[in-house]
């Protein structure tokens, strides 16, 4: 990540525009919500467009600039044989590859297929199933190619995206803590919804980054940022059970947007 930063190049007032890094945004199996977080930057969007050359971003422009790319943001999971070929090609063209969102980092909600038989879905949904060429699973990008950095979330947090871009542009490490959401609740002064309301909150096992979005409005965290750095899911599951959740409900709590993330997958299977 530590390339010489463009802004450090010419402190002496050289008017030539520094060469801007080329940014590409790619989509795999996903809803596009994470790449839209880039457009959602609104106030900062012009600054982003000035700082990087947007070379490939179909949600924003049909213009395409050929690779190689300095940074590739990759959204979505791998669900087809063609996805595998395409991500390998993108990896080859990208100096830095950053996966964005629960689909790209854990397989997404569509990883629910990993717990069932894909043939059953295909025959139930499509009138002519033999047209469908698909993998049996939905899996994260890092299962197929080396990934330099991951941004979690469903969707990702725009502040984390800006932090990532700013860190890359300025040649420093991005600040992306991997501790629990609870840190963000406490910093905001949000009383714990699990303790005060008995809410089935996944915050203690979920990675921070959202700014405690749901607990701040009185809702339990549903784990859309995936497992924190050292999740103790079985201890949380025991507490959820003591709080009255049924076995099936506990399985469902861990089996949502990050169903494919190792710690959540294992805990959901314990309660299958």
């Amino acid at each position, binding site marked *: 990540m530590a390339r010489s*930063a*463009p*802004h*450090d190049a010419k*402190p*002496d*007032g050289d008017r030539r525009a520094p060469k801007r890094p080329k940014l590409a945004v790619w989509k795999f199996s996903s809803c596009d919500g994470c790449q839209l977080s880039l457009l959602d930057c609104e106030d*900062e969007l012009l*600054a*982003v467009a*000035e*700082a990087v050359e947007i070379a490939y971003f179909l949600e924003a422009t049909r213009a395409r600039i050929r690779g190689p790319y300095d940074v590739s943001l990759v959204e979505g999971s791998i669900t087809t044989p063609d996805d595998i070929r395409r991500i390998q090609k993108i990896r080859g063209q990208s100096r830095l590859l950053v996966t964005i969102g629960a689909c790209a980092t854990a397989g997404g909600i569509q990883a629910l297929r990993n717990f069932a038989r894909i043939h059953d879905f295909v025959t139930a949904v499509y009138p002519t199933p033999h047209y469908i060429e698909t993998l049996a699973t939905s899996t994260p990008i890092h299962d197929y190619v080396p990934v330099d950095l991951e941004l979690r979330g469903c969707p990702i947090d725009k502040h984390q995206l*800006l*932090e990532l*871009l*700013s*860190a890359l*542009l*300025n040649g*420093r490490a991005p*600040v992306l*803590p*991997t*501790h*629990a959401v*609870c*840190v963000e609740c*406490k*910093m*905001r*002064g*949000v*009383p*714990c919804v*699990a*303790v*005060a*309301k*008995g809410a089935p*909150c996944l*915050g*203690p*096992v979920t990675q921070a980054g959202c700014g405690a979005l749901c607990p701040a409005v*009185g809702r339990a965290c549903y784990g859309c940022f995936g497992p*924190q*750095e*050292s*999740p*103790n899911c079985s*201890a*949380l599951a*025991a*507490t959820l059970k003591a709080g009255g959740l049924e076995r099936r409900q506990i399985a469902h709590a861990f089996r949502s947007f990050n169903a494919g993330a190792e710690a959540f997958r294992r805990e959901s299977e314990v309660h299958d």
Partner: protein
Amino acid sequence: MTQRTHRGDTAGNDAAVLDRDGLAALIAGLSAAGFSVIGPRIADGAVVLDEITDIADLPAGWRVDQAPGRVETRPADPDAPPHLFDTVLPAQGLKRYLYPPRRRLWQADRDAAGGWHLSDEDAQPPPALAFLGLRPCELAAVAVQDRVFLEGPYADSDYAARRRRAVLIAVNCTRAAATCFCASMGTGPRATAGYDLALTEIPDPDAPRFLAEAGSDRGRALLADLPQRSADPTDRAAADAATAEATRQMDPANGGRAMIGDVADLLRRTLDHPHWDRVAERCLGCTNCTLVCPTCFCATVEDETTLDGATATRWRRWDSCFAVGFSYMHGGSVRREMSARYRQWMTHKLAHWHDQFGVSGCVGCGRCIAWCPVGIDITAEAQAIAASEER
């Protein structure tokens, strides 16, 4: 405070009786003197410390009950005595006001000539805050943080400025939550020092009132300005009986909670005890205990830049020994196992704090017990280790 004229009957005396009008006058007087008054309020189904502008903002008619992993905030029974402060502790104490969760340490701005201009954060005056309704354990916690931040060669100037300006008005405890154990830590339920004013609520249905005691010149000046009457022996006896009731509730003989004696020595000699692994099976590593603890002070430093690289900012933010990254050094984190992280916290708090700061890091407020999502209980863990040693 500005120059005052004495209006009260007991002007010059350190104890007086205030009725609710007197308390309202205290809030109004502090506001008029430019202070934001911070006190307990009901918010988000819990009690939090927040700005209050009127006596009506206080949680009158509310009651808080606490147990390991559970805090219940509900309207009091209609026939209960008329309390303003029956809500034990707010979810977080005044730590977040004296030692904010995130604080800018400095900011550097690039100027047109390519040089850097550095901000001076200490030039910012701290907010003028008056805290109303602080529990004795919280005063004790402030005294602990004073040692951490103000003593030694590296005093924290921001903490010092906030601390110097803060007015501390305590309310002695007349009821202990099931998680409270201040009596065994020697920090409550009645404040003995560290306050400007200490109130004891006497919830007499016919004459709800407070015994008010001044503990500083600033407190004496505040008190002198309030409508009041002198405290008679009945008032003092009622206040004594009310706080004695909280002590009685914390007595293990009555089913109350206490920290075992000699816990520091116990923990120093049981660093390899198998109980640490048993706690780790339950511990979520979520950091909640450390962040609600009124004495925990650990922080990390983060850098931020603008996209164009024209501004760089360094922030200090709360961190926790339960975060894996907290013990990160060259090559990795030192305390990767949950058992190592829990042990670090508990032994620092109860044993090594003495070596470092000459005082226990625990004031017996019980927040770590109440606000732990799985109800891990520091007093019970200490007892379990002690019990297994005796076997």
